[in-house]
């Protein structure tokens, strides 16, 4: 008898799990409305991008005669070729400045963040507050003294001048971001490494860096994007020979007023690296690296 009851009960349980509630009619309507709204937004956001892509593949004469959103009747890479002529060198400049600037600021920021999050020293809070304040500094406010300093250093119109400026101004943001990641490293781990015979820098190299690789990559990607897209320093300090791609693109728009296909191709070329970076790095931007280190996790 009790056995039967068990069977009965488990059957009821199974049914309860598999039964689907049939949606009420007004819920269905509501869902349709939601989807319509979302599709409208999607079109609204994607239309300019669509127009850009379509225009970039048209010939110059077709740009004149059709609306931007109609697909080209004759697909061509003409626009890209012309854009690359103008943007080739600036793109290399941008790449160089971005890689070195991001690497420099991430490296310095990482060391600062390590010291600030894992070691106590005099005035450490003052340092940190100063760094946070620096991230809020409007760059326009210091543009003129900065230009003077860079000129005095003979780094105007020089790639290294841009690298230096991006390293210095990126550093506070990197520090603030990485301090958050480093704070998640359990103190016991640092202590254990000390007991195991390592000094401050050995711990940084052997424990902190390997365990926060993903954080470092994240911050590096972030820095790369912002330096790649940056215009203000590029415009003021770049001069003519070391002109980054953002400025070159802007000049493209200014000088060749009618050649929309070239401009659009240039925009896409400039946007492509950042897009690719985000698509491929997306999966790394997850946490959970420290699991297994200490009791609580």
């Amino acid at each position: 008898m009790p056995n039967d009851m068990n069977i009965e009960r488990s059957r009821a349980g199974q049914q309860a799990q598999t039964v689907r509630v049939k949606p009420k009619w007004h819920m269905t309507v509501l869902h349709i409305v939601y989807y319509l709204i979302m599709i409208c937004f999607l079109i609204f956001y994607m239309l300019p991008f669509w127009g850009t892509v379509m225009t970039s593949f048209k010939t110059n004469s077709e740009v004149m005669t059709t609306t931007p959103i109609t697909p080209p009747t004759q697909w061509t890479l003409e626009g890209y070729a012309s854009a690359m002529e103008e943007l080739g060198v600036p793109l290399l400049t941008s790449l160089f400045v971005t890689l070195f600037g991001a690497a420099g600021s991430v490296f310095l920021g990482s060391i600062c963040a390590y010291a600030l999050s894992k070691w106590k020293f005099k005035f450490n809070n003052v340092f940190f507050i100063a760094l946070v304040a620096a991230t809020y500094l409007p760059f326009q406010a210091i543009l003129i003294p900065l230009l003077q300093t860079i000129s005095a250093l003979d780094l105007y119109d020089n790639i290294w001048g841009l690298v230096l400026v991006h390293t210095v101004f990126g550093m506070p943001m990197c520090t603030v971001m990485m301090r958050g990641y480093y704070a998640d490293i359990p103190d016991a781990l640092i202590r254990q490494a000390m007991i195991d015979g390592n000094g401050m820098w050995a711990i940084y190299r052997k424990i902190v860096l390997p365990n926060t690789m993903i954080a470092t990559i994240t911050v590096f990607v972030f820095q790369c994007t912002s330096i790649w897209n940056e215009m203000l320093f590029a415009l003021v300090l770049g001069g003519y020979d070391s002109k980054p791609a953002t400025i070159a693109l802007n000049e493209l728009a200014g000088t060749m007023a009618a050649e929309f296909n070239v401009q659009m191709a240039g925009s896409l070329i400039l946007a492509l690296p950042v897009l690719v970076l985000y698509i491929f790095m997306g999966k790394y931007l997850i946490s959970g690296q420290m699991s297994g280190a200490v009791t609580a996790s």
Partner: protein
Amino acid sequence: MASITIKDMSVSYNKGKSFVLDNLSLDIKNGEFCVFLGPSGCGKSTAMHCIAGLLHPMSGEIRFGEEVMTSANRKGRDKTFVPPQERNIAMVFQEYALYPNMTVRENMSFALKTKKVAKEEIAKRVDYMAKMLSIEQLMDRRPAELSGGQRQRVALGRALVRDPQVFLLDEPLGNLDAKLRDQVRYELKKIQEQLGITTIYVTHDQTEAMTMADHIVLLKDGHIMQQGTPEEMYDHPANEFVAGFLGTPQINIFFCEVKGNILDAGSFKLNIPEHLRTCLVPYAGKKINLGIRPSDLELAKDKMDVIKGHVESIEPLGDAYLIYVRVGEQIVVFKYTGEHAPKEKELLLTPNMAKLHLFDALTEKRINR
């Protein structure tokens, strides 16, 4: 290998407003297995971190052998301070602290690699210790893939492969299940005896302390309550706290009055035995606390010095019975080692007169020697 001397060490986490350890002085002999025992929060880990050099005491001195490791004056400034990485200690943290980016083997080899020990030597030691702790099949896993007990054994192994001056173990068996704990406890004690390395072992578990220690230091609120061998502390607890902390089940405490040659607990009276009379002279007519361990009670054979009680419940332990007896208002535990549990509801118990513990009612200090 070294002895450890701590002199007048005070530690504060808030710049001297309150002290977690207050004027602690301690001598640990070379090769000794010393256990810091005490309730949670009494400052055991703090003391250990000071010895490791992870914490700076406000004042006091720590020496390994003749060498001064930490020495601070009253103002909290260090006169001498050897950083932890130069102290040559091995430590197991309460929270294990395994390196998540390394496999078990890499974790265990890490300290030796840092010290630039030869590769073959490292492999030999790591393999030996892995076998001792039965974690050989885990060597290529990472900490995240281990259970709590396995992590703890890895942490222990990582410390034991070293050849340090001092082992510091902070509750290293806390997360093992009972069976494994007994086994690892035995292995650990054996390894320590073999290596002969001075060891400090922190625990709140009195059984661990009693079974492993050469020397127990019992702490409470940052003060040493008593230190000595397990036997000394069990047989001659210096105060009521020590008596209550060591031994399971806990010692029974009765509030008594000394009336001439009689100890009057209200619900029963005992004749004061010959050897206790002199020390009780100053307490004539006053209150004292009488401690009797559950194993020092037995069924009475005659009517002399009996404690009469009503059986409340019986817990069989396998080889003995714990009998909970109501005496007056109080529940008394009695450990009965006979074959069968007594059937009567009313029991007459008599204490082993040689093993009575007498404490001052006010100071809780021990009266008899």
